[in-house]
């Protein structure tokens, strides 16, 4: 019998004493909610009336024909309110916050999607909200910062460490150890101390539950391969969870290959060989760290994948051989995004485009009888600045220059 909160040798709760009581409270609240059938119904009701659940799956007919291999289907998490799967976890934790009677939520954000989703939930449920965001990410995701602030959240730029997602998580914990009496920390991914990996996966499992039924209805069979991008791992666990028992379904997690192999160049913990097992941010998993245990810089074109650690649940599934891990480089990702936009009229987020990029590599080698399911975890409109830069779009640059001139006036 494994210890609670452990997945194989990964997971655990490496937390300062001051937070032990808070985690006890959270674990109990989550257990009680999970054992109450009315809670999941309330969650589904909220997600079908406030967000866009069930999100459809779309047959990517043109790409299927282009590649001449497996039939490609796309699970449309981009159609959620606020534009990504993040809403599932956030609304679920929001309902839990109400059950716990807390009045304030805090969250970390990388790309800004989880921050926007949390600020939206706080506005809807009447909670105070503070979002911690690395200064680097604030600079590259201004539109999301704008919306968080309009939604009433206080956005705190984090100037410590590498000034990205991991540092935002550290700052959120520092807030929480001070304000835990009225505050819940709505961690955005299936990482961190127990029960977060389990709880976030639980809320995201709605993605896989829907997708499993939908793909059988649309494709007439279970998928042969399911692809999802992996930052912390919540969208991947969401869609994979429904297929874990199906031996014929291969599950593929695609990490950020950034500029290629070598520590500091990417954010692939399991798909490349640069990460080792360590303990940080409250849990044990593979981290991009040096031999003495200091976390190293990571890089990805997609802020939401730019993280040193990975869900302990995925680390275990990797070790057991149940999930295969791959990585896609920045260039491959931008190409895949471009192709998907032009051929299917879908705009995947840069994060999600990692899953597309790797699926496109494998699809041509597969037979037309086979079925691929890609999780489009979020929409790419938020990435307009990064994508425009990647395309070096002259009309976009001219527009920004004109806009800047107008503000200067």
């Amino acid at each position, binding site marked *: 019998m494994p210890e609670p909160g452990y997945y194989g040798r990964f997971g655990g709760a*490496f937390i300062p*004493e*001051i937070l032990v009581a808070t985690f006890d409270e959270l674990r109990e609240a989550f257990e009680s909610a999970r054992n109450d059938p009315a809670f999941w119904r309330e969650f589904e009701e909220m997600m079908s009336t406030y967000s866009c659940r069930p999100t459809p799956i779309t047959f990517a007919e043109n790409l299927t024909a282009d590649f001449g291999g497996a039939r490609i289907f796309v699970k449309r998490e981009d159609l959620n309110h606020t534009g990504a799967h993040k809403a599932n976890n956030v609304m679920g934790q929001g309902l839990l916050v109400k059950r716990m009677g807390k009045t304030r939520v805090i969250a970390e954000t990388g790309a800004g999607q989880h921050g926007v989703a949390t600020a939206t939930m706080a506005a809807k449920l009447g909670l105070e909200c503070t979002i911690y965001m690395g200064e680097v990410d604030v600079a590259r995701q201004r539109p999301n910062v704008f919306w968080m602030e309009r939604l009433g959240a206080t956005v705190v730029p984090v100037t*410590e460490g590498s000034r990205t997602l991991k540092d935002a998580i550290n700052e959120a914990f*520092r807030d929480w*150890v001070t304000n*835990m009496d009225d505050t819940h920390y709505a961690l955005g991914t299936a990482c961190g101390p127990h029960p977060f990996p389990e709880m976030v996966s639980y809320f995201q499992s709605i993605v896989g539950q829907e997708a499993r039924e939908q793909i059988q209805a649309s494709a007439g069979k279970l998928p042969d391969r399911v692809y999802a991008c992996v930052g912390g791992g919540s969208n991947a666990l969401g869609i994979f969870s429904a297929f874990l028992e199906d031996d014929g379904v291969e599950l593929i997690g695609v990490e950020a290959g950034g500029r290629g192999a070598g520590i500091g160049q990417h954010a692939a913990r399991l798909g490349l060989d640069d990460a080792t097992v360590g*303990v940080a941010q*409250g849990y044990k998993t593979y981290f991009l760290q040096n031999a003495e245990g200091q976390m190293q810089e990571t890089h990805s074109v997609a802020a939401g994948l730019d993280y040193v650690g990975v869900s302990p649940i995925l680390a275990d599934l990797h070790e057991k051989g149940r999930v295969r891990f791959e990585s896609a480089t920045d260039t491959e990702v931008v190409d895949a995004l471009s192709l998907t936009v032009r051929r299917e009229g879908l705009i995947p987020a840069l994060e999600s485009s990692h899953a597309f990029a790797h699926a496109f590599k494998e699809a041509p080698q597969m037979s037309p009888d086979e079925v691929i399911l890609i999780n489009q975890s979020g929409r790419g409109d938020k990435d307009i600045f990064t994508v425009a830069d990647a395309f070096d779009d002259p009309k976009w640059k001219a527009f920004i220059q004109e806009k800047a001139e107008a503000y200067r006036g």
Partner: protein
Amino acid sequence: MASASLEQYIRERRREKDILLMTHIVLGYPSFEASIQVIDAMVENGVDLIELQIPFSEPIADGPVILHANQKALAGGSTVAQCFDVARAVCARHPIPMLFMSYYNIPFMHGIEAFARDSADAGIRGAIIPDLPHEEGAEMLEAMAGHDLDPIFIYSPNTSDARMSAIAERGRGFVYCVARKGVTGASTDFGGLDEYLGRCRAATSLPLALGFGVSNADDVAALVGKVDIAVIGSETIRVIDERGVDAVGEFVAGLR
């Protein structure tokens, strides 16, 4: 002094002083030479125990002052191997107990048994690992016990009575009582501690240390009769930042 246990040392020292002082430094901040100089000044000015923090890139329980010191030490190239070297040097030349403080990934990556062995070889007497609750610490505790190193556990104001007792069974040397919620380095109101410290005393017969927000002679005086050890953490680093390494001796001398 090596033969006396840490707990005996504290009790004997307490016969001479009404409160002991434990100070904290981040090894390699602002440099290893400065660390040694600061430790020398602390010992010369009567400090009774010193926490030597091995820098870590993700010090989640520390506030901005110690966080910056960790980051600057690492940016300056501070390594765990150098921390062991400095620890060995200061343990050899000073008669007071030195403890390591770090986050669990440091011993984990060093190798837990090797970390305990190397710490003991260097002359270190115990360790404080704030992100290692005893539930996760079986391997570390066993390795430390094997090398006669004392695990210093932490109590906080929201630790239940039952949990305090469970921790007391595993702790040795003394218990570090965190004065309040939050991270290191912010100020603390020491007026309302009696009920909490009463619970701490009831839970363990080990000596008690109190830290988080202890920054001057008034704070230390307020703790006399309440705990055995006052812990001055962030304030020494603040002194170094604002007044330089040379100011540490005078600051420490004025605390008691």
